[in-house]
């Protein structure tokens, strides 16, 4: 039966003080009048309250439902009425109150409907897991980590460990549980083994509990005999008594020689480790269908007249326990929940027993005298010698004290398990663990702050990125628009060019326009005609420029009709030069025209007699002018070729008419 065990670094041998509470067997207390149930009895999120004040609840009824994955259900430990849901003093070391459901018991102990499972081997593992989850079971050794999370691991488990070490002085609840209910514990282990299917089941028990070891060996033997088909046998391993061998990481190292990686979980090594009380609760949940509503708690301390282990309903106030163990409450110097190494001192006797309360110590100032004042650290290294995590507490102390969190982290502050071995041996009475808790808090705080600033930075960067994206999108749109415009212009230019080309192909129109306008016979219209000619020339050269630009653009864009355009441009060039020529020819005319004009006016006067002719001439002139204007307007508005032709015909007609009526009027342009 002897199995190889390994040693962890350091460790201490504090006075055991276990004998006081092992003489009596586990007993029960009368039902308390009031049960106070804190919503937060485990690591993780507090549950969601399902009852309200005034509701009558039955024993085992669900009071609060787990909220989130790492959370646990809470059930009524006895039947009665919910009388309050409010903040009450709870088991937290800070002494801060927490939200509690208060039940006034009716003494009937009336159970709600429960569903025991006759043969769990017929069940599905997931169903069993759900049963355990529903029963609200958490790690009962002290941490209170929801058990279904541990059991529900997705990793392959090769070793299931029952942590029955109970290395803390004073506490004997697991010891008594094993002595009296070994078979049930083994049954619980078999259930877990059925779910996890490990290769081996190891039970680590400190060698200061020979009765428990014997009881467990017997029960394991019987279980193997009774169930030859059980998944695997249970091996009971007696481990040397040394604190803190009951730490999860330490018991794993003792039994397997492996170390849980820093920041990792035992399941990373294929190991799941459970506390005795937890396994027993799992068995009750599965076999009896009862949720976790009570636990074994050790009542001890030199003020307790009847020390021993008590099966106590969750929510029972400590004062009730003190009263029924005949404890002189007025002499209490320190009231501790948990062991003397890692437990915390309670401020009030009204704090209730919770799922993790494995021990209550009521001590006077003889048993736990106040620590003497802290002396300077002389770096003797006693702490480093006993540290089970192989840290250098003397260095961590300096860095935590001076808030040098980078250095503290470098010295692996976060791997401290707060076992208190260093404080225990410190010759200078330095409360090292307290400094480390503070240091860890600082590390977490700085992490939160770093995260916050990281998030802020990410937000800022995202914001920047968004702005840049928006700007880029805008820019892109703008460019698209510009390209579209260019395309449109190109099209327009093309259309114009085609039109111009058409005009060029029919040069008479343009030329005639120019010539006709320069042929403007009317004195009054001579200046206007010149203007027209000028504007025609400008327009022609403008068009030529535009066409050239369009060609360039087209060249750039690689349009396929470049050759056509080029042709058109050549034509336009000719046309523009023609127009200019026409203008040049026309330009000298005003000088001649002015005398002609002055001549014309007297010339007109003698012919006043022929009024009708004059009127007709005027009418014709107006017609010419109108036709001219229409033609120009049509040209300006890029009217179609037919319209232009039609207009120019009109113009010609009007001009002929004018010539008929006013033959005397000088003709400019062509005449010269």
């Amino acid at each position, binding site marked *: 039966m002897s199995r190889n065990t390994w040693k962890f670094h350091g460790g201490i041998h504090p006075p055991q003080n276990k004998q006081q509470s092992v003489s009596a067997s586990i007993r029960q207390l009368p039902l308390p009048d009031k049960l106070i149930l804190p919503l937060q009895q485990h690591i993780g999120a507090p549950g969601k309250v399902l009852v309200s004040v005034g509701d009558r609840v039955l024993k085992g009824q669900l009071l609060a439902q787990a909220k989130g994955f790492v959370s646990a259900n809470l059930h009524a430990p006895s039947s009665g009425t919910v009388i309050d849901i409010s903040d009450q003093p709870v088991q937290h070391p800070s002494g801060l109150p927490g939200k509690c459901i208060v039940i006034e018991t009716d003494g009937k102990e009336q159970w709600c409907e429960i569903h025991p499972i006759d043969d769990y081997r017929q069940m599905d593992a997931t169903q069993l897991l759900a049963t355990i989850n529903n029963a609200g079971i958490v790690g009962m050794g002290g941490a209170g980590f929801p058990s279904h999370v541990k059991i529900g691991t997705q990793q392959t488990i090769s070793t299931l460990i029952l942590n029955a070490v109970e290395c803390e002085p004073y506490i004997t609840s697991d010891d008594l549980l094993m002595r009296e209910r070994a078979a049930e514990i083994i049954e619980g282990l078999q259930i877990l083994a059925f779910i996890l299917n490990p290769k081996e089941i190891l039970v680590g028990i400190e060698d200061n509990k020979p009765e428990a070891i014997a009881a467990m060996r017997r029960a394991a033997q019987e279980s193997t005999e009774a169930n030859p088909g059980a998944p695997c046998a249970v091996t009971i391993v007696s481990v040397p008594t040394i604190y803190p061998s009951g730490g999860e990481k330490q018991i794993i*190292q003792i039994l397997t020689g492996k170390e849980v990686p820093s920041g990792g979980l035992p399941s990373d090594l294929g190991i799941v480790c459970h506390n005795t009380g937890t396994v027993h609760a799992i068995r009750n949940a599965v076999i009896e269908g009862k949720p976790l509503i009570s636990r074994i708690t050790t009542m001890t301390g030199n003020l307790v007249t009847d020390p021993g282990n008590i099966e106590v309903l969750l929510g029972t106030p400590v004062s009730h326990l003190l009263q029924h163990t005949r404890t002189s*409450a007025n002499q209490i110097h320190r009231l501790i929940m948990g062991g003397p190494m890692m437990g915390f001192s309670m401020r009030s006797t009204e704090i209730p027993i919770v799922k993790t309360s494995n021990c209550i110590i009521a001590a006077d100032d003889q048993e736990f005298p106040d620590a003497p004042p802290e002396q300077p650290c002389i770096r003797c290294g006693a702490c480093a010698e006993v540290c089970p995590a192989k840290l250098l507490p003397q260095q961590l102390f300096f860095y935590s004290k001076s808030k040098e969190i980078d250095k503290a982290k470098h010295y692996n502050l976060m791997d401290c398990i707060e076992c208190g071995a260093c404080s225990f041996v410190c010759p200078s009475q330095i409360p090292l663990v307290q400094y480390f808790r503070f240091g860890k808090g600082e590390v977490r705080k700085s992490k939160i702050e770093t995260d916050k600033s990281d998030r802020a930075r990410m937000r800022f960067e995202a914001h920047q990125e968004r702005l840049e994206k928006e700007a880029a999108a805008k820019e892109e749109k703008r460019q698209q628009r510009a390209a579209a415009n260019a395309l449109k212009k190109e099209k327009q230019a093309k259309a114009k060019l085609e039109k111009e080309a058409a005009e060029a192909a029919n040069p008479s129109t343009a030329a005639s326009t120019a010539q006709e306008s320069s042929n403007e016979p009317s004195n009054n219209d001579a200046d206007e005609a010149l203007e027209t000619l000028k504007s025609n020339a400008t327009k022609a050269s403008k068009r030529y420029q535009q066409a050239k630009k369009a060609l360039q653009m087209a060249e750039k864009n690689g349009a396929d009709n470049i050759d056509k355009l080029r042709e058109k441009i050549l034509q336009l060039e000719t046309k523009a030069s023609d127009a200019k020529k026409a203008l040049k020819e026309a330009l000298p005319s005003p000088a001649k025209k002015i005398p002609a004009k002055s001549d014309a006016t007297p010339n007109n006067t003698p012919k006043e007699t022929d009024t009708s002719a004059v009127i007709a001439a005027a009418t014709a002139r107006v017609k010419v002018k109108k036709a001219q204007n229409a033609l120009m307007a049509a040209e300006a508005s890029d009217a179609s070729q037919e319209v232009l032709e039609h207009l120019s015909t009109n113009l010609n007609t009007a001009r002929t008419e004018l010539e008929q009526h006013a033959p005397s009027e000088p003709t400019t342009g062509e005449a010269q």
Partner: protein
Amino acid sequence: MAFISVTSPHSHRANSTAGVMQQLLLATLPGVLALFWFFGWGILVQITLSVITAVLCEAGILYLRKKPIAFYLKDYSAVVTAVLLALAIPPIAPWWIVVIGTSFAMVFAKHLYGGLGSNPFNPAMVGYAFLLISFPLQMTTWLPSEGNFGASTGVENTLQLIFSSSPADDASNYDAFSGATPLDELKTQLDLDQSTDILQQQDVFKGFIAGAGWDWVNVAFLIGGCFLIWRKIISWHIPVGFLAGLGILAAAFSLYQPAQYASPLFHWFGGGCMLGAFFIATDPVSAATSDKGRFIYGFLIGLLIYIIRTFGGYPDAVAFAVLLLNLAAPTIDYYTQPRSYGHDKPNRGTAKKDS
């Protein structure tokens, strides 16, 4: 009813800094007795003077620093410093030597740096180095060892030597009946191109290993040191490293040229070797902190002692070697951090941001 809230753990081992210091003092007893036997009453006078001075200085500085005087005096750290310094001082050194040295150690080496636990240098060795530099004559003049608890010199004569009114007389007085230590003598002789054969010839070297009386004094300190290791007041790493460093170098040189270099045994049991290895270098405040670091620290002290003894200007070197390594201790700590549980390898060097 409300109770005081106290953080865990709630129980403590019944040990205290004062207890550590008291056991340290107890461990010096064999050495003190050996010194008393061979060099007479002087050592007791020196210890008395030194302790009185140290306690007065400590009280005075604590008063100036507005700290609780009784509380700090009760930790015995001042007494330990005083005794260690007194053990290193020649028994017939004039009274003012020990007074100046002790007060310098307490005020400058200990309290100016912040008192117990904050001093980077070993206060006793700072005091010793200060004295050795300032008063080389008085600090290197020892009586020849005689045995019988100084019966031949006598209490009165010793007291007269120590408290003689005129310091100038000392020099002439000394020459009459004092001599150098074996280490000193060996150095002088070797410098005069003598060979180590003189170790067998001269009176001063007539002990079983390393000079009359001195070897026994070292054996006595070795016994005291073993007591400390057994009581877990000190760990074995520093003394073993220390003796290994000194021994390896001494062995190498004496194997190479036995005529010019003394044997490791002579070095181990000569001068202040054992006192240094078990009582001086092991001062935890100024030493390296991890086990590996302590071994390296001790080893380097040993090497330095040999180098200074053999090639340096001073015959013995514990004080200088220890002070130099005090300076290096933080660096040693950076590179000797142990591998913590759950880590693949130990962290090295200084902390990085966001490591």
